[in-house]
């Protein structure tokens, strides 16, 4: 029907009830900036998964080592380089209980286990036949031979037939296996997490304080103070900082504290720049001027007005500083400048795994996975945070 011509009943010409309408308008809740940020972050799946992972990791690093009798330094050379998963073989004696063994194909040694996968001990070979490249083990009447004439080594019975396999079992004694000194990899891994995370958090925090302080002062005072301070920052940022972390580590001698100092004192330049930039732009805004005219002190303006508004970019920089700190620490440890033995960080663990890479490649898996996943998580979280804080970037 043509709307120009249709008839409109008289009651439709009544003015609308503004009261009801306004209520409708108020009903749509308007979110504050931070509520909005939180909501956007919450909807970002990778960022949230990362946050969950990081929390899990922190909890594991704090409580994990308490829940086991293994320590990060106890060595047992008889049980070195045990894998986390192994193939269990069964002996079949004519009388009595069967015994269970597994073969460590990296060192051709045979270990006794129980049916569940707990390690009972290293077995001694009865005889070593160097010509045939076989180690012969006796189980009562029965014989099992480790044949390493062809790699990978296999386990055969006295007649040369393959031994009876029960399939793969998870190592119940050392869930992640042991290292070349027979230390429990899981516990070392958890201690490694403690150290890597502590170093990263503390170093990031130190950088944060230096950067916020430096940038805040430069931006707040502006003028010549700012000029000189930013010149210095410019010089520092052309210096290859990793080199200086290395030099400092050489000077201080390796150790937990030195690496925190070395990393913590060097990477604050970005933070300082960001804080200064924010400070400069915020300084000219009305509410700061208002606070000033009302006689607020410098310190109060800095902490009450400027910092809360600079929080967003600082937070993002901080989240992204942590993975760099983790990386630098592990890098230092990897080239032998990290924490001292027997303490271990992920970097040292990786370096140790590299030494035994040919025989026991699996040892690389845990430290490599741990550090990569953690870096992933912090990167995703940082990206997510940045997107959440800056709606313009969103599509």
């Amino acid at each position, binding site marked *: 029907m043509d*709307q120009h011509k249709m008839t*409109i009943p008289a009651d439709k010409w009544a003015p*609308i009830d503004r009261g009801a309408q306004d209520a409708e308008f108020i009903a749509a809740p308007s979110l504050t900036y931070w509520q909005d940020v939180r909501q956007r972050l919450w909807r970002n799946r990778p960022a949230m998964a990362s946050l969950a992972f990081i929390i899990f990791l922190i909890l594991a690093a704090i409580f994990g080592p308490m829940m086991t009798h293994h320590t990060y330094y106890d060595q047992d050379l008889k049980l070195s380089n045990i894998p986390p998963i192994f193939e269990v073989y069964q002996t079949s004696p004519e009388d009595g209980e069967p015994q269970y063994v597994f073969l460590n194909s990296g060192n051709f040694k045979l270990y006794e286990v129980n049916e569940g996968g707990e390690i009972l001990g290293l077995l001694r070979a009865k005889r070593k036949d160097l010509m045939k490249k076989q180690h012969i083990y006796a189980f009562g009447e029965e014989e099992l031979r480790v044949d390493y004439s062809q790699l990978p080594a296999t386990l055969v019975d006295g007649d040369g037939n393959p031994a009876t396999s029960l399939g793969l079992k998870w190592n119940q004694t050392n869930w992640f296996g042991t290292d070349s000194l027979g230390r429990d990899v899981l516990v070392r891994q958890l201690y490694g997490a403690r150290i890597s995370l502590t170093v990263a958090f503390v170093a990031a925090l130190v950088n944060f304080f230096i950067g916020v302080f430096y940038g805040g002062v430069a931006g707040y005072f502006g003028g010549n103070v700012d000029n000189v301070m930013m010149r210095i920052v410019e010089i520092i940022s052309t210096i290859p900082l990793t080199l200086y972390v290395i030099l400092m580590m050489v000077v201080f001698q390796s150790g937990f504290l030195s690496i925190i100092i070395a990393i913590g004192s060097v990477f604050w330049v970005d933070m300082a720049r960001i804080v200064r930039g924010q400070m400069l732009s915020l300084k000219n805004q009305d509410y700061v001027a208002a606070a000033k005219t009302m006689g607020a002190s410098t310190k109060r303006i800095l902490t009450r007005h400027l910092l809360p508004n600079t929080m967003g970019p600082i937070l993002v920089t901080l989240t992204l500083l942590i993975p760099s700190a983790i990386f630098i620490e592990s890098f230092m440890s990897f080239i032998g400048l990290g924490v001292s033995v027997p303490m271990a960080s992920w970097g040292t663990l990786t370096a140790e795994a590299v030494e035994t890479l040919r025989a026991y490649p699996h040892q690389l898996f845990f430290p490599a996975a741990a550090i990569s996943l953690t870096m992933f998580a912090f990167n995703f979280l940082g990206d997510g945070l940045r997107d959440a804080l800056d709606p313009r970037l*969103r599509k």
Partner: protein
Amino acid sequence: MSSAPLLKVDNLTTHFHTSRGDVQAVRGVSFDVKPGEILGIVGESGSGKSITCLSVLGLLKANGEVVDGSADFEGKQLTGLSDKDLRAIRGDDIAMIFQDPMTSLNPTLTVGEQLIETIVAHKPVSRGEARKRALELFELVKIPSAASRLDNYPHEFSGGMRQRVMIAMALTCDPKLLIADEPTTALDVTIQRQILLLLKDLQEKLGMAIILITHDLGVIAEVADRILVMYGGMVMETGDVYDVFESPQHPYTTGLLDSIPDVRSHKKERLTPIPGSPPDMLRPPEGCPFAPRCPHAMQQCLEAMPPLFERPNAKPTVHEARCWLHHDDAPDSLKAIFKAPEAANG
């Protein structure tokens, strides 16, 4: 003015696909532009003025889509044209200049180069000839010491001068239609007038048609022939500038006129702005989009979208307004809100 229209836009409808749903930026806009006339489009920011023009030229961002309607330029259907054919028209027959001359010029190329590349893209001329043409254009838009300024970069110009560069760039191929999207909004008040007068002057010299987008009714009053008032992605009122200014037929137009210093008396004081804010184009209201802010809103306005009602006109151009108050059934008390236009006198 009875010549065939240069550009005929019919029921143009443009949506932006976003993660929160479709933004209905333009909702069934129709208008035409005749050769040599200046059409002013006014409306508050966000009312769909820019998107209407960008849709016509196929310059929408990747998430924008013309979902309905058409734009016809000299018998060519622009909305269905291939990118290659559209490219041949853009910058040649239809040129466009933008609001912010600070950001609309490429900062890393000399202004001369930015002119020359446009000429070379459309005309079979050498770069040398193109450069000569660029120089002529610089003189045409009155850039002082034009020859030496061709090799300058945009940051070496002031805002007003940059807008002159933009205008020169738009004129490189003698367009039949120039779309000027808020060409003076970003400039100092003193410069605004100069640019406006330059545009008017060039239009008279070169005889092109201009679509002049602005949210400043004063600008329209000064130079435009016809006016299109947009709100919420729709045309609210259209007609000859004289008719619309003398006897606005839509509460929104009245509101706009009340919110600017009187163009006629040149009084400088600020008057009442329209209270409230424009509708959310993700979920535009079912009825009249202006209803939440309209002082006369009625039950009918909330329930149904008003059509465009034809209004009496003093000038030859049709005068239409999208408001239920003009419906036949409206009580006389309400009809009396709008003053009838004076008798035609030219």
